[in-house]
């Protein structure tokens, strides 16, 4: 099972990893991205969605997305297969 699918995520942005017992909080944007990643959306789709939802340029959205994904990897919450 993919790591992301195992995470328990609530609407306030609290994330619990049942395998490691670690918990994290994310802001509204982070929560939005994680939900889309869980749905299996591609980087392009997420960039478009971010740009529409938060009214930012696709370039800014992409930069923030790449940065965020890197952080998820750093915490071991994302294994290579997603984006």
């Amino acid at each position: 099972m993919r790591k992301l699918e195992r995470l328990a995520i609530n609407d306030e942005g609290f994330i619990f990893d049942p395998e490691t017992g670690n918990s994290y909080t994310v802001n509204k944007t982070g929560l939005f991205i994680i939900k889309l990643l869980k749905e299996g959306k591609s980087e392009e789709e997420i960039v478009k969605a971010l740009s529409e939802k938060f009214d930012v340029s696709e370039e800014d959205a992409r930069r923030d997305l790449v940065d965020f994904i890197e952080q998820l990897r750093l915490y071991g919450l994302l294994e290579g297969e997603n984006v």
Partner: protein
Amino acid sequence: MYRVAVSGINAVDNPGPGVGIAKGLKEGSLEISIYGLAYDAMEPGIYMKWLFEKSFIMPYPSAGEEPFIERLLYIKSNYGLDAVIPALDAELPLFIKSSSLLESYGIKTFLPTEEQFKLRGKDHLPEIAERIGVKVPETRIVTSYEELSKAVEEIGFPVMIKGIFYKAYKAFNISQATSYFNSIVAEWGYPIIVQQVVTGEEMNVVGVGDGEGGHFGLVGIKKLWITSLGKIWTGVTVRNEELLSATERFVSEFKWRGAFEFECIVNNRDIYLIEVNPRFPAWVYFATGVGVNLPDRLLKAALGLEPERDWDYPAGKLYVRFTDDFVTDMSEFQRVVTKGEN
């Protein structure tokens, strides 16, 4: 009504498991009366009458088998005693050795065998790890300065310097390593374990083996907050399938009987075995609280009743320990001091 005695009722800053065991037994399905076995009149459990109906000061196990068994027989003949759940490492060898004798007097236990008990020594970890297919931090067993410096040179800093049963320190250089080596030798003697530091999540599993390769439930946890003595203060249940299946392999490979705590460091798919304790940990009430009442199940196994085996506990349950206090009469303390029981 079953009468069961529980030791380790020293609910202090380095708590024994007795109070947690008693809380589990109280919440179990058997009608029971619990007695506390203490080694000091100041052990708080003695005064916690809502858990321990009576408490008894015991002779130290080091005083020998005879006075210890006599004390248990005194309890049995005066107040009735069907089972004992010992919870302290120091008394386990005596209970294990005397279990048939106690059984012949109608006092039941459910304990590991002598061979299983010996596995708790950290020098046995590589053997356990190999048989159940987990890793163990690179380990050297040393008994001199020469061996110590050779071991740290081979493993590289930082290293863990550990006693065979107690104490563990992280050393970053040879002078720290030597100083921890000396302090453990002074307190606990030889040998000393020199171990590689492994990174990952520290997780523990509590369980009760049935002695035939199966078990009466497992609960995996991660300590979130610990005291300066390394004791859990808050924790969370985890469901790490690698860890749980390694624990099941341990139980089946060694046909573990009785309570145990399986301590590991988990790094993604790698499980490093750190320690096996042949008894309940002090946080055992956590298992009861998530629906796997291990103390109750162990008591049933001791009494020859069939315990439950379901253990589908949820991940993400939070354990919170807290300090509490109460006021009682000096006469309670006096009775313990003068009569050895209360």
